[in-house]
Every structure is written in C-alpha cells, then in structure tokens.
C-alpha cells in the first residue's frame, strides 16, 4: 500500500468513526433507533445549517477533531420532551434543548476518545460549547495535505423530518502515530463499547 493510500485509509477510518459515533450515541440516548447518519450532499461546509450549534474539540498530539452539531430548538424539543418527562415540547426550554445537544456532542466525543484509547492513542476532550449557528460563517474548511493533513466531513443525523447536521474538521499532524486506528473494526467495537450515561438530566 502506498503512503498516499495509507493516509486516505486513515482519513476515511477517522471520518467514519466520527459518523458512527454520532449515529450510535444519538440512537441510544434518544431511544430512536431509526436515526441514521447520511451524507448532506445538498449542503456545503461553512453553510449556516441551524440557528444553534454545539461544538466540541477532541485533541491529541497527533490529531485534532472539531465536531459541530447544528440544530434548531423547534426540531429538538419535540424529540426530547419525553426524555425530560414533560407533557409536550412547549415545556422544554431553549437551555434544556441546548444542554441535550451539548451532551450529545460530549457523548460522541467520549465514544471517539474511547475507540482511540483502545488503540493506544491518547486523546482529550474539551467541554462542549453552545452558541448561535451563524458563527459557522467564519469557519475555515480549507483542505490541505502539508504541513498538516486537513480535511472535513459534513453529514446529517436524520429521523423522519428531523435533521441534526454535523460538520467535522480533522487535523492530522502525525499520521504514523495513528496507524493503529486503521485496523479499527466498527462491528467488533460496538460489542465492547460502554453504554455511557446520559448524565445531563
């Protein structure tokens, strides 16, 4: 395998790991197994995809991942009011809606960190940040291979009419240090993973 092919494989593995993590976490913690991660081909990076946004950083010496989830309160509230044991979406505040997405960011990042940890790659997770979506205007999605490998991914967590958009920026500074992750097997990993606790309630 050429070096370029190795790097492409690494890039894809990490990209799909993040997609899988997001899909898995949203399914488990909303109780909606119909949630699926799909390409957002009709959208472009840098596009304002929701009124609100939660951001989390997953960083290590060889890799940095910036994960953003874009949403609207009007979409999230009907999804989560049963989780909060409320009678209707109207009883959910904006803050509760934001907390839910921040926690989803946190759990997704935790999943990713755990996978890397199993492969002897140490990563850290920041606190999730919540803000308005229009700051996405000022994001930089420029891709590059040198001196740092930079690339991005854009998808949506889709369920019925509901979409939670995800934009991810990857920065790999040391591909060799991440080599173990190329052997990551999604199916096996799912068996071992931690169920996690949705601890924002």
């Amino acid at each position: 395998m050429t070096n370029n092919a190795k790097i492409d494989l690494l890039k894809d593995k990490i990209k799909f790991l993040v997609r899988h993590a997001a899909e898995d976490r949203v399914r488990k913690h909303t109780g909606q197994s119909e949630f699926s991660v799909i390409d957002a081909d009709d959208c472009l990076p840098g596009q304002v995809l929701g009124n609100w946004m939660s951001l989390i950083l997953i960083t290590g010496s060889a890799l940095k991942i910036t994960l953003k989830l874009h949403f609207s309160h009007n979409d999230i509230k009907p999804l989560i009011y049963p989780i909060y044991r409320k009678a209707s979406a109207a009883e959910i505040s904006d803050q509760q809606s934001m907390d839910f997405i921040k926690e989803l960011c946190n759990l997704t990042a935790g999943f990713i960190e755990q996978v890397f940890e199993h492969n002897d790659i140490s990563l850290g997770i920041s606190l999730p940040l919540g803000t308005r979506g229009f700051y996405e205007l000022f994001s930089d999605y420029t891709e590059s291979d040198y001196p740092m490998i930079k690339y991005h991914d854009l998808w949506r967590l889709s369920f019925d009419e509901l979409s939670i958009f995800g934009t991810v920026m990857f920065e790999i500074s040391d591909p060799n240090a991440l080599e173990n992750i190329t052997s990551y097997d999604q199916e096996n990993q799912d068996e071992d993973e931690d169920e996690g606790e949705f601890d924002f309630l």
Partner: protein
Amino acid sequence: MSNLNQTIQASHKVLSLLEKANSHSEQIIDSLPGVFLILNEKFEILRGNVEASNILGLEYEALLRTPLSELIKKDIWDVFLFHFNQLNENQTTQGIKFELAIHDHKQHTERKSFYWHITRIEDTNQAEGAVYSLMGKDISELREAENRLSSIFTNIPLGIFTIDECGKIEDTYSNHLLFLLGASDLNQKSLKDVLFEPIKKDLTREEIDGIDNIYTCLNNSEKLFEELSRSFPKNIFFYHPGKKNEGRHLQISYKPVNYDGLLKRLLIIIEDRSAFVASEKEQERANLLEKQSRAIYESAIRDPLTGLYTRLYMADHVEALLNSHNRHNIANACLVMFDVDHFKPINDTYGHDVGDKILKSIGAIILQQSRNTDIPIRFGGEEFLAFLPGDSKSGFLFAERVRKSVEQLVTHVGDEAISVTISGGISSHEVGEDLDSLIKRADQLLYRAKKEGRNRNAIEQNI
C-alpha cells in the same frame, strides 16, 4: 499532569470563556434597539434579532434561510435590492446608509420609517457567498416629531430657509416663504438673486456692502460672523419690478449654523412687517391729526395775544366749577373781573401795537398769579375774568396781587415809559346761581371800583 491533560484543561477554560462571551454578544444583538439581520448572497436570513422577528412577523427559528424578499412588499424590496446592488458595484464602499419606511407586520396600516445601514462582511465563505449585515433603526417617532415641527414651521407666518456655504438656498421650511417672495421654487437659487436683486436700486451703499458680507462670512469663522452680521440688511421693502404697490416690508434675521467652528449654513428668518409698518404709519398719522386737532382746539380756547383762556373755554369749564360748588364738592367759588383803567386813550395815543403789548404783559401777570385750579379768561378787549375755587376773600387777595403787579408794570415806547393800572370786582358764587348772574354782580363791583377812583378792587360789602 501530562501535556495533553494540560492542553485540555487550558482549552476548557478558553471554551468556557468563549461560550460566555458569545452568549453575551448574542444577548446584545437580540436586544439591539432596531432591526438586525445577517443575510447571505441570496439575501436569505442567517441571523435576526428580536426586533427583526417582530417587524418581519416571523418567529426567530423560522427566520433562518427565509429570503428577505418574501417578508416585505415588492416595492420596498426593490429599494433594498437597489442599495445592495450599489454596494456590490462599488467594492471600495464598506456600507450604505439610507432611509426607507417598511410595514410593521403588527400594524399593517402604515409604514414605519427606518434608517438602514447595509454593511458587507468581508470574511465570507463559499457556501453562503457574500454576507451582509443589515441594521435598521426605527426613526418613525423622530419623523413624526419632525412632521409635527415641520407642520408648525410650514404654517407659521414666517419665511424660513437655509443657505449653504455657497449662498444657495438649500432647505425651505415654510410655505409662507413662497407667498412672501412670490416665488414658486427657491431650491438652489442664490440668496442675493432671490431677496436683494429685485430691489437693488433701492438699496443703500451700506446694505449692498452688508450683502457682500453675508457671502464673506459663509465657510468662515464664527468670530467673523459676529463682526460682520451687524452690517447684514435687516429691514427691506421687497417687491418685484413694476409691482411696488404690492411690496412688503420684510424684517430679516440671520442665525449661524456652525460645524467645527466654521459657518457652513445660515438660517434665515423673514418676517412680514408690512402690517406693523402700516399700523405705525397709521399711528403717526393719527398722532399728527391729534396734534393738529389739539392745536386747533388750543387756538380756539387760548387767546393768542395773552395766553389766557377764551370765552369758548369758559362756556365749557366754568359751568363745571360752579356745578362742583352747587354740589358742595368744593366749599366756595368766586369770580374776579378785571378791567384796565383808561385803556382806550393808550390805544388811541400809542397805537394798537402798544395796547396789545400791555395786554400781553397783563395776561402774563394774571397767568403767573393763577393756580392750576383757577380759570383765567380774556373776556374781551381789556376785560379779564378769573374764576377761583375759593371764597371772595381769597379772590380779593388774588386780585390785589394782580393789581399791584400791574401797577409796577412799565412798558417802554421809544424813550417814553408807560404805566397802567387795573381795577377789579370780586363776587362770591352763591349755590344755585347761574354764570350770567355771577358775572353781572362782579361787573357791578368792578363799576364801583372804577367809580371809587380806579386802581383798586371792590368786594361785596357784607364780606
């Protein structure tokens, strides 16, 4: 602690701060006192604030990606579009400001005036293209206040306008101005041409210099205005050629409008003083007439030779004195009747001029001895009357003072010194007695004084 953990700890702190800062910024944007919108290249809304949501009639969540053109009327959107295009055509311009009224979705009936500011956000991306911020400040209350003020200005009977630094009329604030100057449109016309040119031939040298000084002051220091403004023409008679009879007296005042210490504009207020001037003239005419009437009356009631009152005055005023006595408003009233002794020979010998001179001197003595309340009258020829609000004793004392003064009077005719004497009769008015009776009794007493040797005063025996 590992390097990684340290980095993460640091990023936690930074992200917490960033989240807090963002949250505060968002609250500020939400509560901005006006419309705030972020629009992309297709003029879709990417961010709005509370006021935008209110004005456009959409919930905040629903604003995202809604084209602004769908939320406002087409004619208004066309104006917005024009300004967006202007901004795009001129890449060096960062922002465009303009005023435009839009419908408030809560109040469909009328438009509200907004002052808009479109700014191009330089940091744009491929997905959204050019990005603009659109801010609209609600100035409807300001415009309403302006309209109220303007309607006051428009209707007050003053001509109000400003001239710019070149002396051209810039803004007119009153309909009355057009009426005063008989013009239809004054915009951008020269002050000189409009106000002074039609009456150029009537202006004095000083006024012409004053007009030049107005132009000298423009775009110059405040201090120069203070010095020269005294010379500006302030009162003119304005008319159009051939229509002098329709002219108006205008009073002009000049108020400086300074920017950075320089006179950039001049507020000019014109007041039509025609009615005032006409009333002043009318007043002058009335005063003159009154003066003339008074002169005529004076000449009728004043004897021009002696300065004493005439019989005409006596008819009007002596009755009042006697009535006061009749009503006991005064305790007494009396009459002194004088006659110059041997006056006819003086006239015959020295002529009427000398006779008149003596009569004039005697009149002056009687006036001198009279109080304000006394009524001295030239009764005819060399006869004089004096009505006094007092008893016959005080009348006698008065008559004696007059007699003695006349006795000492010397009139020079060439080298000759002429002396005359005077006799008098004093009668006390009885309540209810008429004027003729009073005069008759005084005349009888005068006759007695003459008979007893002249140069004396006769008083009733029982006093």
